[in-house]
C-alpha cells in the first residue's frame, strides 16, 4: 500500500521533523503540509491524498476531524498527539478517524498503527461492556466469554476480554491459553504505553478475540489501582471495537470504578437458592442512578429453568423491573469451559449460545 500523506501540524519545528520522516520513507509520498487545518480541508482535494496525519493536541483541530472524515471518505485519518491523552484519543475515534499515534514518529509507527487500527474494525468509538454480579457464581465469566466470541463472530471486528476478577480470574483457563502478560503488568505500565505498545499485553486467542488475563497470584490484585485499570480499558478501546470486562463479585473499588466507567453494564446472577433476585434488587439501586445519565444497564438471569417467557415475567414481577434476558442452563458448559475448549466446542444450536448470540447481534446492530 502506498500512502499519499497530508500532514497538519501547528508547530513549525515539529512539522519539518515529521515531514522529513515521511519524505525519507518510500511507502509514503508527502502530498502537502499545513499548519492550518482549514486550509488543508479546502485545498487537499486536488492532491488526492489517502492518509491524513492531523495534530489533535489542539481541540480546535479535533472539531474539524469529522469534516476530514466525511470529505475524504476513501482516505484514512490519524490523530497526532505529543503525549497519550485518553480523552483526545476517544474524541478522535468518535469523529470517525482511524485512531491516534504519538509524535514525533518513525515510519513504522504509522504503518503499525494503520494495520492495528484496520484490524480493530469500523471507525467508531469502542463499546465497553462490564459484567457485574452481586455474589459470584453467577455465570458471569461464561457469559462474558461467550458474548465476546459472538461479538467477534457477528461483527468481524476485534474484541478484547479483560479479566478484572483479579484474585481468581478463570478466563485464561476457559480458553486453555497461558498468556505471558497479565492485567497487573498492563496497569503498572500503562502510563508509559501507547496502543501499539499495549497490544502485546493481550494474548491472541484467535477468531478476532484477545485476552488480557488476570494475575497468577491473588495477592497481586492489590497492585492494581482502579484508575490505571480504567486507563488500560480506555487505551484498549483504540485497539479493539469491543472491550468486555469480567469484574470480581460484589461492590469493591475495582468493580465499582469499572462498572461506572463502562458504557454498558451487564448485571448477572444465577438463579439458585432463591435469594438472588433479592440481591439483584438491592444492587440495581446503585446502577439506576447511572442509567439516568445514559449508561446502558442490562440485567440477565442465568440457569433459568424452565427458560420460558412466563418464567421471565415471574422474575420481572419479583425483580420489579424489566429483565433484559434469561439464559437457560447448558450442562455441557462445565465440561467445555473446564477443559478450555470454549473457542472450539460452542455450537449455535445450544440454547445458551443462541441467547447470548442474539444479545451480541443487538449490540452489533446498534453500530456504536
Amino acid at each position, binding site marked *: 500500500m502506498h500512502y499519499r500523506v497530508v500532514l497538519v501540524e501547528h508547530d513549525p519545528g515539529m512539522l519539518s521533523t515529521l515531514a522529513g520522516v515521511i519524505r525519507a520513507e518510500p511507502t509514503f509520498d508527502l502530498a502537502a503540509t499545513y499548519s492550518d487545518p482549514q486550509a488543508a480541508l479546502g485545498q487537499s482535494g486536488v492532491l488526492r491524498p489517502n492518509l491524513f496525519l492531523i495534530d489533535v493536541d489542539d481541540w480546535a483541530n479535533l472539531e474539524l476531524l469529522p469534516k476530514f472524515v466525511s470529505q475524504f471518505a476513501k482516505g484514512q485519518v490519524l490523530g497526532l498527539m505529543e503525549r497519550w491523552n485518553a480523552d483526545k484519543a476517544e474524541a478522535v475515534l468518535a469523529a470517525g478517524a482511524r485512531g491516534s499515534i504519538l509524535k514525533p514518529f518513525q515510519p513504522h509507527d504509522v504503518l503499525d498503527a494503520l494495520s492495528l487500527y484496520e484490524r480493530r474494525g469500523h471507525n467508531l468509538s469502542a463499546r465497553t461492556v462490564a459484567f457485574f454480579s452481586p*455474589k459470584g*457464581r453467577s455465570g458471569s465469566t461464561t457469559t462474558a466469554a461467550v458474548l465476546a466470541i459472538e461479538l467477534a463472530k457477528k461483527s468481524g471486528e476485534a474484541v478484547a476480554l479483560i479479566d478484572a476478577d483479579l484474585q481468581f480470574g478463570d478466563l485464561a483457563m476457559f480458553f486453555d491459553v497461558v498468556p505471558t502478560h497479565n492485567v497487573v503488568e498492563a496497569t503498572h505500565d500503562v502510563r508509559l504505553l501507547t496502543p501499539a505498545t499495549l497490544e502485546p499485553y493481550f494474548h491472541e486467542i484467535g477468531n478476532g478475540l484477545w485476552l488480557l488475563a488476570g494475575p497468577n497470584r*491473588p495477592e497481586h490484585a492489590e497492585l492494581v489501582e482502579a484508575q490505571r485499570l480504567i486507563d488500560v480499558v480506555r487505551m484498549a478501546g483504540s485497539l479493539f471495537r469491543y472491550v468486555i470486562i469480567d469484574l470480581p463479585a460484589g461492590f469493591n473499588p475495582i468493580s465499582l470504578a469499572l462498572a461506572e466507567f463502562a458504557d454498558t453494564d451487564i448485571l448477572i446472577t444465577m438463579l439458585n437458592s432463591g*435469594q438472588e433476585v433479592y440481591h439483584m434488587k438491592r444492587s440495581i439501586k446503585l446502577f439506576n442512578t447511572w442509567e439516568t445519565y445514559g449508561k446502558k444497564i442490562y440485567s440477565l438471569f442465568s440457569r433459568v429453568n424452565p427458560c420460558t417467557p412466563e418464567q421471565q415475567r415471574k422474575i420481572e414481577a419479583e425483580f420489579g423491573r424489566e429483565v433484559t434476558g434469561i439464559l437457560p442452563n447448558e450442562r455441557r458448559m462445565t*465440561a467445555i469451559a473446564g*477443559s478450555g475448549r470454549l473457542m472450539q466446542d460452542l455450537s449455535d444450536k445450544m440454547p445458551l449460545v443462541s441467547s447470548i448470540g442474539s444479545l451480541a447481534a443487538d449490540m452489533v446492530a446498534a453500530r456504536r
Partner: protein
Amino acid sequence: MEEHKNIIIAVFSTEAGCGKTVTAINLAAGLAKEGYSVCLVDLDLQFGDVMGYLDMVSGVNLEDAHEAMQRHPDKFRVEDYLVEYSRGGISFAVLPPPAEIQDAYLIDVATTEAIIRELADFNFIILDTTAVFSALNLAMLDMATVICYLGVMDFLPAVKNYKVGYDTLIRFQYEESKISLIENRSDSEKFIRSRDVERLLGEKFYHRLPNDYPAVAKSIRLGQPLMFSSPLSPLTQSYWQLVGRYTNRYIPPKQPKAEKEPAPQLPFSWLMGIGSDWQLAGKA
C-alpha cells in the same frame, strides 16, 4: 464445656457458591445441638444470606454493633446486637450483616476484630466469610482457631482456585494444621477425582460432604438447618460427623465413601483437553 471456649471456625473458600453459608449454618446448628453455646457471624457484608437461609429478620446488625463499639467501646455489650435462632430445642446466636449494601463500607477491620473478641464467652464462633482475600477476611482468618476451607471440585477452574487459595494460605503462613480442607458435593457426578485433587494439593481432605441438592434447597426454602428439614439426608449425617470432629466427639472410623464406583469416568487426560471430544461426556 470448659475445654471449648472461644473457638473460632472461619468458613472460607476461593470460589463463590460452594456452600459456605450452608456449612456455617449447619455447623452452628450441630454444635448447638451438642450443647455448646454458638454464635454465627455473617461476614458477607454486602450480600449475606444467613438471615435469608434461616428465615429470620432482625432490627439490629453488625453495623449497629460497629457504631456502638466505635462510640463507646467501654459500654459495648455484644448481646444487644445478636438475634437468637431457636428451633426444636436448640438455639444459637446470630450476628446479622449490615442491612444496606452501602453500610458495608462503614465497617472497618479493627472494629470488627474487637466485636469478634467480645464474643469470647461463646464456646464456638462461626464466621461465614466471602470468597476473596480481603483485609477483613484475612483478619478473620488470623483470629480463627480453625479455617474450614471449602471447595467444590467439579470444575477445573474451581480446582485451580482451590489450589491457588491453599497455596496462598500457606504462603501467608497459616499453619497447615489450622486449615481443614473440606470437599463439598464430593459425590456429585463429576470428571475430577478427589484423589487427583489431593495429589495436586499435596494434602488429604479433612472431610468430605456429599451432594444433596434437594435437601439443601428444602432447607433454604423452609428456613431451617438440615437437621430439621432433612434429618435423614446423608449430607445432614456428614455435617453431624464434621461437628463431631471439631468437638472431638469421636474419631470416625474412616472417610465417608467419596465416589460412586464405578461412576462413568473419563480419563484425566480428557479433562486436560487432550484426546477425544466433549461429546463423549454426554454419552458416558
